[in-house]
């Protein structure tokens, strides 16, 4: 057990692409935590998907041993944070486990949107900030100017800030010195009852759930009966230890100020949720650490196997993913058009995309997903209220008294020059302006109240493109508000395609209906007959297009040598028909279906 004064718990925060993962790699290397031969690019991001997209999805933590210039060996706990608004809560919990944060700023680009947003998040948690100017090897680097910018905008003293190149390794050791010097050691609360903050948990098929904790008070060791304060669930601790980059290092006891892991034969991560507090049944703490909230899915969509035979495989895959992702929910549903599948709940659209991609990539499944939806509260004329997250359960409009939709309190941080564009966007998304605060000369905080269903599709992307990536965005679920909603149905050749129905604000119905009709027209391959495409509200058609009939599909030459080829072509065409979704008399290929669901590309 290390003395508290030699422990430093810190995170690294940065705008995207400012070199967070590369710096983390160098720190690992420099402390010889990872032998060079074990070094993989960006070791902390160990999911394929993360490495490919350059984003960190789940938090990770690692313990480094560093011999400082003062001759002492320090125990540095680096806690990595996810970088997307969908996982904001997890970022917040990771930061709550630290006393300090290394703030990386790109020496050529300077302070950017997320530099600021992350800084505020860190300051919210009373973290000591260690500014680091990175990428000094770039030709365009201007460390002095950027240091000045950090001082002016954020108000951090940068006179001592290390100016480094994480890529070449230049000056990186100074970062470690700064951490030792600036980040305060944790308090010694060893004699209090145990309180440990869960900042992450992962499922391991041998050990069960591995709970990553920051011990705030007290101690925990193997054999203790641990209790989750939010759920009350109790488990016998099997093992405690530290996270090393490439292995788990077992230890006897974890005590206050330390960061480590606990295993206790926990079956699913839902039993050890991020933000919960671990205490002991023998000597329970009175009060949990602040800030726990159950993360509820906010976005729902149907997920169907492209091939109906993969239904069981999809269920298995979802169950496995859920072991590791308490925020993912799913239940079986059926669709007339898509067959058997699952209604899944996600934190947000990125979460949805990540799950979808993992299902396709790690589990080799071909999927069709329906339009994402939020939970609407529909008040019926008979006084009842129903919650709808699936358009196919939308009640008959004649029985509806009024409807409510969820809203969010959104804060958008951006340079003042983009305020106009951002306001236009929020207006377009039915936002209600709440206020605007100048954080400093170069940064405003625009506060809007927005309907959740307006931001679940593509809001973040639209925001980024209108502000050239300068804006950052954060939101919190707010209340439900009365809203004028309608359900749009898509009809192909007169048949309703249930999987394409969705709920939308009545003001937007016409515009979207037209877009969908066009998209369908462009994406349904011409068939032997004309196919009318209609978008309807109830029985009223509000947009229509026609897929023209195919005129030519013929093999002109069929002589001696062509017969076998023609026979194979015939077989292939019959086979191809099986890959089509049969909607009444109309066959729609997978690709067309996907294109329609991804309506918000433009």
């Amino acid at each position, binding site marked *: 057990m290390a003395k508290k004064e030699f422990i430093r718990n810190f995170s690294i925060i940065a705008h995207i692409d400012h070199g967070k993962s590369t710096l983390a790699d160098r720190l690992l290397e420099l402390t010889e935590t990872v032998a060079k031969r074990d070094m993989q690019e960006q070791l902390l991001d160990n999911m394929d998907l993360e490495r490919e997209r350059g984003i960190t999805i789940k938090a990770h933590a690692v313990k480094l041993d560093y011999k400082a210039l003062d001759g002492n060996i320090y125990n540095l706990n680096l806690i990595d944070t996810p970088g997307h608004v969908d996982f904001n809560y997890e970022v917040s919990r990771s930061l709550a486990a630290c006393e300090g944060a290394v703030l990386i700023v790109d020496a050529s680009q300077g302070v950017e949107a997320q530099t600021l947003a992350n800084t505020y998040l860190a300051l919210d948690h009373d973290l000591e900030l260690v500014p680091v100017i990175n990428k000094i090897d770039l030709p365009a680097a201007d460390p002095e100017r950027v240091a000045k910018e950090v001082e002016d905008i954020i108000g951090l003293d940068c006179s001592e800030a290390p100016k480094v190149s994480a890529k070449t390794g230049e000056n990186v050791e100074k970062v470690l010195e700064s951490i030792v010097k600036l980040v305060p050691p944790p308090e010694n609360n060893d004699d209090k009852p145990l309180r440990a903050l869960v900042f992450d948990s992962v499922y391991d098929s041998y050990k069960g759930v591995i709970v990553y904790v920051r011990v705030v008070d007290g101690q925990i060791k193997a054999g203790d009966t641990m209790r989750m304060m939010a759920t009350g669930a109790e488990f016998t601790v099997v093992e405690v230890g530290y996270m090393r980059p490439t292995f788990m290092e077992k230890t006897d006891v974890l005590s206050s100020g330390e960061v480590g892991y606990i295993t206790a034969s926990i079956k699913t991560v839902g039993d050890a949720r991020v933000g919960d507090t671990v205490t002991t049944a023998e000597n329970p703490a009175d009060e949990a650490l602040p800030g726990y909230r159950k993360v509820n899915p906010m976005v729902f969509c149907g997920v169907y196997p492209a091939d109906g035979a993969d239904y069981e495989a999809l269920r298995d895959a979802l169950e496995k993913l859920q072991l590791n992702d308490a925020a993912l929910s799913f239940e079986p549903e059926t669709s007339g058009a898509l067959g058997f599948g699952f209604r899944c709940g996600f934190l947000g659209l990125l979460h949805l995309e990540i799950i979808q991609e993992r299902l396709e990539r790690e589990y080799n499944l071909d999927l069709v997903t329906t339009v994402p939806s939020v939970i609407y509260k529909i008040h019926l004329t008979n006084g009842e209220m129903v919650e709808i997250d699936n358009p196919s359960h939308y009640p008959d409009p004649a029985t509806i008294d009024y409807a409510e939709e969820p809203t969010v309190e959104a804060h958008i941080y951006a340079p003042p020059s983009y305020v106009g564009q951002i306001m236009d966007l929020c207006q377009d998304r039915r936002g209600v302006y709440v206020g605007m605060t100048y954080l400093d000369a170069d940064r405003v905080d625009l506060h809007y109240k927005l309907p959740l269903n307006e931001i679940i599709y593509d809001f973040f992307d639209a925001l980024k493109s209108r502000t050239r990536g300068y804006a950052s965005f954060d939101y919190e679920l707010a209340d439900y508000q009365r809203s004028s909603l309608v359900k749009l149905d898509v009809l192909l050749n007169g048949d309703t395609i249930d999987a394409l129905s969705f709920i939308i604000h009545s003001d937007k119905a016409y515009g979207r209906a037209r877009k969908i009709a066009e998209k369908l027209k462009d994406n349904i391959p011409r*068939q*032997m*007959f004309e196919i009318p495409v209609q978008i309807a509200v109830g029985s009223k058609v509000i947009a229509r297009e026609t897929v023209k009939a*195919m*005129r*030519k*599909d*013929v*093999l*002109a*030459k*069929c*002589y*001696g*040598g062509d*017969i*076998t080829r*023609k*026979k194979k*072509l*015939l077989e292939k*065409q*019959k086979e*191809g*028909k099986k890959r089509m979704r049969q909607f009444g008399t109309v066959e729609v290929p997978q690709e067309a279906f996907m294109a329609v669901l991804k309506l918000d590309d433009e």
Partner: protein
Amino acid sequence: MHIPFCRSKCPYCDFYSVRADESVKTQYVNTLKNRISAEMSTSDCKADTLYIGGGTPSVLGSENLCEIVKSASPFLSPNAEITVECNPFGLSEDFFKILAFYGVNRISMGLQSANDRERRALGRLSDSETVKQAVLNVQSAGISNISLDVMLGIPRQTEKSLSETLDFCLSLGVPHISAYILKLEEGTVFYNRQNSLSLPDDDAVADLYLQTCETLERNGIMQYEISNFAKCGYESRHNLKYWNCEEYLGLGPAAHSFLGGKRFYFERDLNAFLNDSNPISDGDGGDFTEYAMLRLRLTKGLLNSETENRFGHKIPEEIIKKSAFFADKGFMESDERGIRLTRNGFLLSNSILAEIL
């Protein structure tokens, strides 16, 4: 008989052909002759058609061609149809007289288009005047059964340029015309350049096809297969064998055969053929689906009587039922005699066959 030689390669064609010098051609003719006698002498029935295609058979010269015909003659029935495909360029009346003397009674020539600009785009070296002269030479040589190939859907083709081409054929009085919709074959120049070719779109090509059918029939040249038209009695007896799912022997690299219920072919390799390579099996042939697929290429269609003769049962009820659906849409006709595709049905025949068979 496949003659795998061409003077030059047309940019849309993926038939097997190479350029070769005279000695190779002579060697090839000898190999072919040997193969003909080897294959045919074991059979006790006679062939009633001989088709020398390519490639460009005429590049062999009249002497070589006659050698091939002569070697096949003992195995042919007295009234056999003997066709030679010719490239019209530089073929004299004498050339055709010699062929006619040895029994050739049908000549098939690639016109493709009578519009010289379109011809150049297709890589045709000669102008339409040359084709006209060649047709006149065939006729003076006493061969009246002439077929011209026409292509539909070629770069920049319009209704007007097509009608010029069709008028050209009609004015020459040829009794048979094959009109093929251009298909972009992988590996050809056209396939690789398709986006810069100004090809008419599918709707336009469908219209060109209908225009062809109507124009020719108005002039007494009746459609009998998806891409083939003839005056009564001039239908290609040889090609009808393919569509009636009858047997045939094909010799030469890339030539296919259907004999004794088996389909097989020689690989696309001249040297292998010259070295007496064995054909490669292509599975069984002649089942009902194959028969129906081929017969539905004919205007006559699939008939109950013939189906019963060949398979012992009429057209299955399932197929009749599905055909009624397409008949309703104007793509098929269905009656007690059998089922057949209409012109609009021919245009969609791939999709329709995938539905009904």
